[in-house]
């Protein structure tokens, strides 16, 4: 690994700092996120395509409502702020604030999942929005809604578990001002989940 870093350092441009071994994890996460972004991009492009070609597509905000999801959007944005504050705290070696803010981020993600579970329960049980049919119009309305929000929800679930692991390791004193890269990399994943929700909220709920 260090040989590779040294080789890269030799070829790096004058204005770019060489990749250090600590950056490989970050580079790996960015490559994973790029692939994941293409998955979400494909889903949203397919959603747009299906909706464009369907005449009886219901108005999403009439069926889904936007106030709960607007609050969920705000919650994810706030949790992203907590995440960056947690990272900034560990970079200052402020262990107490690091644990507080990462704990709040985990809590934010968990409450988001509870809100989504409530939303799905209400849509399925009370509003009759099924996966393959619904009383509002195009059958694919329900299918695309559950696939896209479900795919995102699984990412949030993964993020909550990931950050819980970071928090538990952090409580044993595993991270410090000299060793915070794992926290930064987990943060990248969490901000990506927030970023994707911003797009999902716009495409699925607002337009």
């Amino acid at each position: 690994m260090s040989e590779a870093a040294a080789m890269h350092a030799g070829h790096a441009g004058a204005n770019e700092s060489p990749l250090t071994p600590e950056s490989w994890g970050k580079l790996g996460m960015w490559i994973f996120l790029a692939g994941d972004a293409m998955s979400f991009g494909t889903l949203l492009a397919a959603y747009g395509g299906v909706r464009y070609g369907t005449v009886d597509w219901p108005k999403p905000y009439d069926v889904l409502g936007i106030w709960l999801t607007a609050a969920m959007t705000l919650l994810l944005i706030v949790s992203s702020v907590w995440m960056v504050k947690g990272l900034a705290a560990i970079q200052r070696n402020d262990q107490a604030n690091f644990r507080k803010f990462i704990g709040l981020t985990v809590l934010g993600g968990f409450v988001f999942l509870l809100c989504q579970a409530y939303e799905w329960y209400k849509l399925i049980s009370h509003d009759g929005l099924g996966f393959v049919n619904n009383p509002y119009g195009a059958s694919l309305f329900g299918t695309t809604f559950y696939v896209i929000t479900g795919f995102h929800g699984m990412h949030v679930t993964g993020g909550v578990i990931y950050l819980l692991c970071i928090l538990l390791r952090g409580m044993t004193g595993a991270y410090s001002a000299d060793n915070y890269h794992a926290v930064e990399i987990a943060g990248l994943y969490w901000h990506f989940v927030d970023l994707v929700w911003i797009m999902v909220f716009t495409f699925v709920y607002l337009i």
Partner: protein
Amino acid sequence: MAEHHSDTLYMKIFYYLLALTILEILVALPEYSLFVKAIILVGMALGKAALVALYFMHLRFERLTLGVIAFTPLVICVFLVFMLTPDLGSVVHKTTTPAKQTMEKKP
């Protein structure tokens, strides 16, 4: 790098994101052209996504390589949309024409 990561900057970005979310809802609620609404809303969402990527994910302060990796999926997805558009147009054309013919034959 640490000097860029101040609490003031993060709170500033948070207020921008909050304001854009409220604006999005205000734009989405009234009834008008879906095409115009979609253009405005997607533009605002891309702005919010850029704020998250540039400041919360620190892309603004990172090496160019990571920025190129992050930007690539957006280019590919825009390309995908353009590739899908002609096909979708032909699907609409094909489904409407036979319907008209059936209507004409009935009387």
